[in-house]
């Protein structure tokens, strides 16, 4: 086996003084070299605090202060040892000072690492961000992954993910409200036949939609929690835990705990953002988060290209200008807005394949059948859909609501009963004989719900499953790093205690 050779690997050599000096020079030059690179603007103030600066950076100063306190403490101890003439104390001081020298080198390495993370970008390491599938989309959001430092990439990722999740959440609400509205349409048929809810067959799908809410809410909460966790790490890791760890590491009684704090701080401030940066790569290479579809769902309407194109292609003959994401996008005004009963204005109900003439939508067979993206999300699909939906809702309005309002006029209500009883039979016969009438109405909500479901699945993976796995990696990293520096911190055991 390959690893069995490891058994013969000796322990790391004890460096000589010359080696110490060489390592120190190397570490300091590394720290200085990266510190002189082009500055950048981190996304948030919190993250800015993590970045070291050659002439500033609170945690660097405090850490150096901690080392200085350690040296002073050892100097005092040495003096006491000399006064009391205790050679053991002098020996302890010598080994302690060697340890502090090692700590100083480690500090320089961490500063170098911080500088690399704060200045290196995808472009620096030779990855062309323009090759990402979603480059244009990200660019429209003002995000160019190629120019964001590795440290801030995680923060950008979480913001982007939350933005997508929120949009998905809104889309789901709108779609569910719409589905609820159409499934609740009742056609009353008088006292003889009772009433039917022709689209209540969509209810199982609607129930599934409600279930999606649970997973979506969980994923959104997870993303939100990660955002706050990142802020917490940025505020406490390097600014607080690291200098405290250095100070405690420099003092003999608290050496072990200090090392654990240092390991924890490095994991929190650098390793965790690196994990998130990796997630960003997954997001932009594998998931392809173009949100045009989400916007389309959100506005309950398709996209169109500019005012004139919108006027030409939108069934409603109207469009919405969306500037929420920095750029300008156009969406067709929806044919039927949630909560708005269909009006008599033909522009609100006609399909692209039909035109409003003489008070009705007349089919125009010369126009090829439409696809989504041209006819409106709600009112797109098979040609008869608009008629079918209008019929269902119209029948409901006229024969259910109308009959109740006019209940005091017996003639009208009795006539309404008779007419609706006849119509419902006709409608049922129509549904049986030519089910195609109903298919367009059904196909659309099923397609939209399926698309939302797939989006939701992607989001759940990114928002919940991936963080769960990465939490395990993070916990193991903290345990290994703190263990190699001093006392291992087992977060799982700590959580059990809590």
């Amino acid at each position: 086996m390959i690893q069995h050779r490891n058994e013969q690997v000796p322990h790391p050599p004890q460096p000589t003084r010359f080696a110490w000096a060489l390592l120190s020079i190397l570490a300091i030059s590394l720290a200085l070299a990266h510190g002189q690179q082009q500055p950048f603007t981190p996304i948030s103030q919190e993250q800015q605090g993590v970045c070291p600066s050659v002439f500033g950076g609170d945690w660097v100063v405090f850490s150096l202060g901690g080392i200085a306190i350690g040296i002073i403490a050892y100097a005092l101890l040495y003096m006491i040892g000399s006064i009391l003439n205790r050679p053991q104390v002098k020996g302890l001081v010598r080994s302690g000072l060697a340890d502090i020298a090692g700590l100083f080198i480690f500090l320089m390495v961490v500063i170098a690492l911080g500088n690399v993370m704060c200045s290196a970008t995808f472009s620096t390491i030779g990855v062309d961000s323009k090759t990402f599938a979603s480059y244009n989309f990200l660019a429209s959001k003002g995000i160019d992954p190629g120019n964001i430092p590795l440290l801030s990439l995680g923060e950008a990722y979480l913001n982007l993910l939350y933005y997508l999740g929120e949009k998905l959440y809104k889309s789901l609400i709108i779609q569910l409200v719409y589905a609820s509205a159409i499934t609740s349409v009742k056609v009353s048929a008088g006292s003889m036949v009772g009433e039917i809810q022709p689209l209540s067959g969509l209810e199982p799908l609607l129930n599934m939609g409600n279930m999606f809410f649970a997973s979506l809410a969980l994923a959104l909460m997870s993303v939100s929690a990660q955002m706050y966790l990142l802020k917490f790490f940025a505020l406490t890791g390097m600014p607080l835990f690291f200098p405290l760890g250095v100070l405690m590491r420099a003092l003999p009684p608290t050496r072990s705990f200090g090392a654990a704090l240092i390991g924890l701080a490095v994991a929190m401030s650098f390793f965790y953002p690196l994990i998130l940066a990796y997630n960003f790569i997954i997001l932009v290479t594998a998931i392809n988060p173009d949100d045009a579809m989400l916007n389309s769902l959100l506005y309950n309407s398709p996209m169109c290209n500019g005012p004139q194109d919108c006027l030409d292609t939108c069934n409603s003959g109207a469009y919405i200008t969306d500037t929420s994401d920095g750029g300008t996008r156009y969406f067709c005004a929806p044919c039927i807005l949630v909560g708005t009963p269909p009006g008599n204005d033909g522009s609100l109900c006609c399909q692209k394949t039909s035109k409003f003439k003489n008070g009705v939508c007349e089919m125009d067979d010369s126009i090829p059948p439409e696809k989504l993206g041209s006819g409106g999300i709600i009112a797109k699909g098979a040609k008869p859909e608009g008629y079918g939906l209008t019929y269902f809702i119209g029948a409901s309005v006229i024969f259910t609501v109308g009959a109740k309002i006019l209940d005091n006029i017996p003639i009208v209500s009795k006539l309404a009963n008779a007419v609706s009883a006849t119509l419902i039979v006709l409608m049922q016969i129509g549904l049986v004989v030519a089910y195609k009438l109903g298919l367009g109405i059904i196909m659309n909500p099923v397609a939209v719900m399926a698309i939302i479901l797939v989006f939701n699945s992607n989001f759940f993976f990114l928002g919940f499953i991936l963080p769960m796995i990465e939490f395990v990696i993070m916990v193991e990293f903290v345990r290994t790093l703190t263990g190699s520096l001093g006392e291992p911190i087992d977060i799982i055991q700590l959580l059990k205690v809590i």
Partner: protein
Amino acid sequence: MMQASKENTSICPSGMKQLFLAVLVVIAFANLVYPVSSEDLQRRAGEMADILQKSTLAYVAVAIAILLAALMYMGSSIFNDARLLAYSKETLYQAIVSLVLIASLPAIYVIISQICIELFLDGMPVNGSMFDVASAYLAWNNVYFFTHLLIITVLNVGIASLINQQYSIPIMGVFATVNLVSFAKPLMFAVGTGVTLLSTSLFINSFQIMLLDLIKNSLLPIFLPLGVVLRAFPPTLNAGNVLLAIAIGAYIIAPAIYAFNIYLVTEIVDPPAGKTSYAEHLGLMSLFYRSNVMRTILTESSCPYVKMGASMFRPSSDYAVFVTPHESFDDNLKDCGIDVGEKGLLDMTADIASRMPTWAKVILGVDLGARSISAVVTGANSVKSLMKQTTWDKLCSGKIAAKICKSLGIIGFVSATISSISTAALAVSLFYYSFDLVVGTAISFVILSAIIPFLNFTILVIFIRDFSQYILGTPISLGHLVRLI
């Protein structure tokens, strides 16, 4: 995560590596002498070039590791330190091992791909790489789940329109209520469950698509170089081994698993002659996973859904393919090799109606007739209430008219009763004749979304674990991982 110890590392028998290498050499030789077409050679060259391109950073990492070993060697000479010398030799050795692993990856991948094509796909000339085959299969699963979801919803809407209603039958001035929903409840429950299963299937399948994308796009460019760098330092050797095992193991095995899935599903749906076939109990699966359909979607580029791949549910205008008028939907399915029949796959009413026996069609006719008479009686009663009694009497003065007018109450009662009974019978017959369809959802969930993904995940994890343990020497404790999660 990794529990490396001297005890653990000695688990591997010393001859295992030699055996592994010997097997590799035999496979490589077999691969070289195996007759292949120029298209196959072109495909293999493309796959190898793709892997090489993705592994660029890993080669850089190897170079860094070798450089590090050289620096340590120089340091050991300067300081005359034997331990540093041993350290540098070990680093160099691990760098060379990493280089061998990375360099042999394209060949191993191509060899395993070819074996999978021969074993599981009957040597068919597939389009693109094995990852494309896997993507096509998963994309096809989505098409299947979506179509099934659509059809079952159509069925449910049909139930809601025809059966989900309440009758109030007039008997001597009193209304007797018959709630027909009771007859349709079993079917509605089955359909509700079917929708849940299909939605869950869509969810699970999308997960798999994402996992495949993840393995394809981000393991080699990221995990591989990171693993190589970590392997260069003895304290992080085990962590590096685990990353390397995940990157190489998953990249090799993931597409192979899906080739096996295709074989498994076609064997279930369309077994060779002489073997028991369960196709008739599989509902729509028997249409979607026939071997000729799978051949079409894997080898020809006529199927629009597979051409779109995983992006068909993704944000792009092309996803419109799912919401075109259903005639186009049927045409697209036809292009994918599905036998949609004369009436089209989505026209389930016509399909179910055509499969109904004569007695069921008679019931349907009686039901509609009775409903029409009921409606006419309701209308007549309304007209009567609006007229003066004398006008009504005048209308009923004729011989036949008088009989009808007298019997209006009875006719209303009889027609409503017949209508309710026939609708109930219709509900039962609908349930009977859509049984296969409804049961098909449950079976397809069990096969495509429970057994197969579970099997895939198990194979993937076990392969990575064993690759890490027996090839690289670092055992991964699955129990420890599970405890952490």
